[in-house]
């Protein structure tokens, strides 16, 4: 019982780790592309990076969650998008958090406009990427555990079929139909 709970916790912790790492990847590249002046790296085409990195990260996240239900992959995509937007917000808030600037009303307006823009751009891309990744992973990269589970299901189905066949044969042997009587001949 405790072992099962521990294994469940480990599973969810791993999902959470993938979500956090994915959010960091998306936020890092989004900032490098959208706020290129402050980035230590130069991204070639900011538009391409803003569009492709969330899809690619979502896709990889989906593949890593092949063992989970597709709903979990979609949920993980949603959480990754939310967390990456939070990271972008954290980046924009960094001067305030560092005590260098004060959070004024114009700053809040600027911050919310950037966050809304990030949400619009990132959200659908990450979720779609994760669902596609989960589907592709399921098709081409099933884990040994999933493979074994499938094999077990197939084996069980086979056993059921055999049992049903046996039952059918037995009932045919046991239930003897009466011989049809020959037509009676009339005397006289």
């Amino acid at each position, binding site marked *: 019982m405790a072992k099962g709970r521990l294994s469940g916790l480990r599973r969810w912790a791993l999902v959470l780790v*993938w979500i956090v*790492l*994915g959010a*960091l*990847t*998306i*936020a*890092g*590249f989004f*900032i*490098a592309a959208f*706020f*290129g*002046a*402050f*980035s*230590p*790296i130069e991204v070639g085409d900011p538009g391409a990076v803003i569009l492709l990195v969330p899809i690619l*990260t979502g896709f*990889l*996240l989906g*593949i*890593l969650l*092949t*063992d989970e239900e597709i709903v979990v992959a979609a949920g993980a995509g949603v959480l990754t998008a939310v967390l990456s937007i939070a*990271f972008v917000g*954290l*980046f*924009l808030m*960094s*001067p305030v958090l*560092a005590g*260098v*600037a004060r959070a004024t009303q114009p700053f809040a307006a600027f911050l919310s406009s950037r966050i809304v823009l990030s949400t619009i751009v990132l959200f659908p891309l990450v979720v779609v990427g994760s669902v596609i990744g989960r589907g592709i*992973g399921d098709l081409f*990269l*099933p*884990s*040994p555990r999933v493979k074994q589970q499938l094999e077990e299901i197939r084996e069980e189905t086979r056993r059921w079929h055999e049992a049903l066949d046996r039952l059918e044969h037995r009932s045919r042997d046991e239930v003897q139909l009466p011989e049809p009587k020959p037509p009676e001949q009339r005397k006289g």
Partner: protein
Amino acid sequence: MHVIARVLAAAYVALAVFAAFVFVQASVNLVNVTEVTLRMEDSAAVTAVEIVWSENVSEAAEVRVFVNVTNPGRVAIEVIALEFVLHMNDTSDPRPWYNEEKRDATEIGSGGFSERRGQGTVVPPGETRSLEGAVSVVPNTVRMTRLAKPDADGRYHPVVWDPWIAYTFVDFDVTSTRMYFAPFHEQEGVLPSG
């Protein structure tokens, strides 16, 4: 996990570590740039005005304005422009030097410089650099008439109005910022040299 999925997982982690580095460094850069932008307000001032002139109205004169710029932040800045409007306070006029109508009547002209990015004056963090802007005055012009207004002691009282600098950051390709600073009036008066 499938063997290919394992390889992808390793790539996923590596990508995240790299992105985390980008995230942290970009945040630090944003903090540093914001710090300079917000603290620059009091970091520039006109320190002196020098008049290179023989006091002969038939000879050309040059008025040099010196501005000190201090970098209050942790990242280097580059001053790419300095601009101001030069006036010569006519002490015989009792109105204060900053009076708008008086300024209209005493304006000599604008001066300063403008450079391309990469060719300006770099001010390292915590250091101060002196910038110089000049206004040339040629003979037989209204400007010369306005320049030749010494007080009873033969001293001149130049006014540097609307001074501003434009600066950008050496390491970050951000749009240049224009910063206005306090106007300057030479109260004591200055004697021409040359």
